[in-house]
């Protein structure tokens, strides 16, 4: 009798333990705004989409390409990429996945009404879609295009029968949020939470949790408090101010990885004579724009104590850098140095350039966009002033800042850039000459322009040999960085915090997803 009771007790305890381990509650800092995977290209939306839908090419936590709905991809001809699809895949509603669904998806992307940021740039190089058989699809391009598989890591595949004519609203209501991903949609309360349950037919690794509540808590302190109170098991975007405290707390563990977001300073390369926020020491405008002089740019870069910013402003959750991508990521330049902090050297260079007494500049930046953004430019302002460039600092809200930066209203300003793990991404967007016809330099807000670099970029963009292409890109990155096209500062560390009993695989691309959480002992 006693034994029996004990056995029942044990069974109950085990049952409770198992039930507990089946549920996961996570809180993210940035709200998901739509469950239509093609409506708004935005990290939080992509994170939510990658729980419900899947892509031809998936990425692992270091942003390397992995087979997804496609098992393999090869350039069968210089302008034709062939994808072999995974057989036997079904959507959550039981419909079969075939090459025709890929064709449907690619056709839908440019035609999502009212999209404020569409995925069209990823499908524009495709000139023709050829469905060879239900499990083979060929994508034709006008010129050789090595980036096509990487572009496919952004495209979530929908089902033609289910999603023909589907509106964004019907995705948001949850009705049509049907994919092939690791979780199925249960309920969506816009801006508040998404409830999911495990898709047992998922082709990839089986998620550890059967039910997931994906909550959005935008206030940093409230998110940390919810974790400490045990209301949520995992949070992302741990504020740097809380990191030291959480490290000491044995109820939680932190999971970190060097990310893909570079914080950098952009400089006015556009104006030859006089930049709007640069004057001489008496406040009179300068006849020439000193930032056009490489010596001045190098001086400004070496006047910045990057390790001090990382340690004191970022509380250690960043890596000082002199280049675009972190170690271990494609196109990282091996051994390229972080510019050495040297105030005296900066003064010498400024004197050589004809500014022995420096000049005055206003450094602009956002105050609500990147971790500690306003404090970073304050620190840099002090460092520049110490090197003889008297710096005023002006931080403003992103909504105002980004528009003005895009109209070239500033002389020097802080920005961040989340990279694709490929050197062509920062080069094409931030460094290449601004050119509407080629679509290059679209985020080149300082209007740096180096025709030699553009020519090299054009050559590499048609090179289908991965190894020689990476070498080309590394040489171009060197060219841009030696010329101080922008001043890289640091690469952010992505930090998650989990309650005891949970562990997160941290991702370089900042996505927070339920399939990356596992029970820990």
């Amino acid at each position: 009798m006693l034994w029996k009771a004990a056995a029942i007790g044990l069974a109950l305890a085990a049952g409770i333990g198992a039930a507990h381990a089946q549920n996961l509650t996570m809180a993210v800092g940035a709200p998901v705004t739509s469950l239509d995977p093609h409506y708004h290209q935005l990290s939080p939306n992509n994170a939510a989409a990658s729980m419900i839908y899947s892509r031809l090419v998936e990425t692992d936590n270091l942003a390397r390409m992995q087979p997804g709905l496609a098992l393999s991809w090869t350039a069968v001809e210089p302008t034709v990429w062939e994808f072999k699809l995974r057989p036997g895949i079904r959507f959550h509603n039981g419909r079969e996945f075939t090459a025709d669904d890929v064709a449907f998806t690619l056709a839908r992307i440019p035609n999502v009404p009212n999209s404020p940021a569409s995925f069209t740039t990823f499908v524009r190089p495709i000139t023709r879609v050829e469905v060879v058989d239900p499990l083979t699809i060929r994508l034709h391009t006008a010129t050789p295009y090595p980036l096509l598989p990487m572009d496919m890591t952004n495209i979530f595949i929908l089902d033609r029968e289910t999603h023909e004519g589907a509106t964004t609203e019907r995705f948001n209501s949850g009705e049509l949020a049907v994919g092939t991903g690791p979780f199925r949609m249960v309920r969506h309360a816009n801006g508040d939470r998404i409830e999911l349950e495990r898709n047992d037919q998922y082709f990839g690794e089986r998620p550890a949790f059967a039910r997931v509540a994906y909550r959005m808590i935008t206030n940093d302190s409230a998110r940390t408090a919810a974790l400490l109170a045990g209301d949520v098991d995992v949070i992302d975007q741990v504020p740097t101010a809380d990191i030291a405290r959480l490290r000491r707390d044995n109820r939680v563990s932190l999971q970190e990885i060097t990310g893909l977001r570079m914080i950098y300073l952009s400089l006015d390369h556009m104006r030859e004579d006089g930049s709007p926020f640069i004057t001489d020491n008496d406040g009179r405008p300068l006849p020439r724009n000193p930032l056009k002089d490489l010596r001045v740019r190098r001086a400004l870069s070496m006047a910045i104590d990057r390790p001090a910013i990382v340690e004191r402003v970022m509380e250690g959750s960043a890596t000082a850098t002199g280049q675009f991508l972190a170690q271990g990521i494609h196109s990282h330049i091996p051994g390229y140095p972080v510019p050495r902090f040297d105030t005296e050297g900066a003064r010498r260079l400024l004197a050589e350039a004809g500014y022995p007494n420096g000049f005055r500049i206003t450094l602009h930046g956002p105050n609500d966009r990147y971790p500690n953004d306003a404090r970073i430019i304050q620190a840099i302002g002090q460092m520049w002033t110490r090197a003889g460039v008297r710096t005023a600092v002006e931080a403003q809200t992103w909504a105002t800042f980004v528009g003005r930066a895009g109209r070239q209203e500033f002389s020097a300003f802080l920005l961040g850039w989340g990279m694709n793990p490929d050197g062509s991404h920062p080069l094409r967007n931030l460094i290449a000459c601004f050119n509407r016809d080629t679509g290059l330099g679209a985020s080149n807000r300082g209007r740096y322009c180096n025709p030699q670099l553009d020519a090299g970029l054009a050559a590499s963009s048609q090179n289908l040999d991965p190894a020689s292409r990476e070498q080309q890109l590394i040489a171009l990155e060197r060219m841009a960085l030696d010329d101080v096209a922008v001043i890289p500062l640091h690469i952010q560390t992505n930090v998650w915090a989990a309650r005891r009993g949970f562990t997160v695989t941290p991702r370089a691309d900042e996505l927070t997803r339920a399939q990356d959480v596992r029970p820990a002992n």
Partner: protein
Amino acid sequence: MALYLLRRLMQSGFVLVAMSLLVFLGVYAVGDPVEILISPDADQEERERAVRALGLDLPLWQQYAVFVGRALQGDLGRSFVFNEPAIQLILQRMPATLELAFGSMFISILIGLPLGLYAGLKPEGRLSKTIMAGSILGFSLPSFWVGLMLIMLFAVQLGWLPSTGRGETALLFGTRWSFLTADGLAHILLPAINLSLFKISLVIRLTRAGVRETMLMDYVKFARAKGLTPFRITFVHVFKNIMIPVVTVLGLELGGTIAFSVVTESVFAWPGMGKLIIDSINVLDRPVIVAYLMMIVLMFIIINLVVDIVYTLLDPRVRLEGKA
């Protein structure tokens, strides 16, 4: 009366137009929504497509004309961010905000009235002085700080109450409400208290002032002389008369709470309208900002109208006149 209502309606229409115009100009002055919403690696062609898709390629006056034309047909536009009708987004979140606002109102009356009454009846007592000193704290402490402290104390340290979010909901009148479930009540308690602190102080001070003034009135003295019990004097003669200012102020406070409980909602991750409007302002989601503010203006106009009408019922000396 009819003339009065007509005039009020016309004034309201004017306020609505002015408000929408201000929001249009304001958002235009702050920045460009496309710059914020667009994916960073979009090329120039894609940016231009997005500008056209959101109707931002037209001159501002034409954008406004398009808006007015649609608004007259009852369509206040679609959110840039959610691609859903702005009004629908706001209405979806309204129940959460309403129950929070009424919850805090309820708490402030429940706590504020008795304390204020006591402080008014025994102004020199030690307890009264403590109450009055406490009410100063309620006025002066910033609500986001108090909110965080409440979370730290009751959720993190003591673990009595959930820290954030809205709990389980139950269906009533076709809408989901959380005050109908135990879990929902546990979730609403902290944010409602946070939101009510200021109002508790307000009620205490109004009640105390009212009681002290009324206690000196002739009819109270007369009632006392007549030998009525202190209980009857307080709750029949005094109480009725101090309720008029309390009700007026609370009515307006209710409007303010519904419209601008932004701080509390974001600290407690409460999925209400306040959180929607602050998120929308951050990304310059103009249709939502316009629709929200127009709705709030409408709400205040209606509350004021109701208050005016209620006055005439409460106090026969007040007349609603057509002439100003």
